[in-house]
């Protein structure tokens, strides 16, 4: 297995979906290749950083606009509102 082949298999390796012979070739290559070892390490770190990203939500200004709009509506439809 060459490096340019290994880098395409990293997700399959991490998912545990490589077949046994591919997996041993992957691990064997990794053992003697500092470049691929580093690539794998950085790939793992990338995944960890993605995991720390906050869940998607609306940007604060957009959120505020919606809340304002909601408040306006309540004021309009409820004559008792202050």
């Amino acid at each position: 297995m060459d490096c340019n082949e290994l880098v395409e298999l990293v997700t399959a390796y991490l998912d545990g979906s490589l077949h046994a012979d591919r997996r041993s070739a992957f691990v064997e290559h990794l053992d003697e290749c500092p470049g691929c070892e580093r690539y794998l390490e950085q790939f793992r770190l990338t995944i960890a950083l993605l995991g720390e990203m906050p869940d998607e939500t609306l940007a604060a200004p957009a959120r505020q606009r919606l809340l304002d709009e909601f408040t306006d509506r309540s004021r309009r439809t409820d004559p008792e509102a202050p």
Partner: protein
Amino acid sequence: MARRRAAPYLRLMSGTTERVGGSGDRDLVTSLRAGDEQTFATLVDEWSGWMLRLAQEHVPTRGAAEDVVQETWLAVIKGLDGFRGDAALRTWVYRIVLNQAKRRGVRDRRTVPFASLAPDDSGPTVDPARFQGPEGEYPGHWQEVPEAWPEQVALSREVHDVVAEALATLPARQRVVVTLRDVEGHTADEVRALLGITSGNQRVLLHRGRAVVRAHLERYFAASAAQGVS
């Protein structure tokens, strides 16, 4: 080919109403009609995430997806009094997102079919120039070992922005898969079922997306190292 993704999305969304209202849709709708701002704010915070993901399947950019979600909430505010309550509130909201997103997607001439892979889902994920050619001493091996990253990498404000920017550049399908798997922590099986794709395609989209994010981080760390030296 049929779009039958409503059910899985609704499953991922389930539980939300309980947390929001305490007892189901009717109370939720009653609170909203009564103008309860806290209920509305909580709904916006809890539902906008899946609404954005749903929208992103049909529109090309994150910005367009945000527009769709905003338009949807505005439509919800306007339509509250007319909401007949014969559908669950979230089903109603789901349909509005879908309709707005599809209309917008058609307008932007971009739909994102999940079932098969697109041209941007093939080819090497690492620049071939990083590897030795056939004339090299070790063809297919690194020209140079990738530069080390800093010892301690945390999700600082800057790193957060780099990752967010990288995600924004991804083709929509890769972005959705990476977001579901890595940002939100769903399993491969969940994502496969949710999007109706094969596990092979799920893996390809995930791998390509991750490789792009890694490359953005690599450039960022290289640039900050260079600045540190000068």
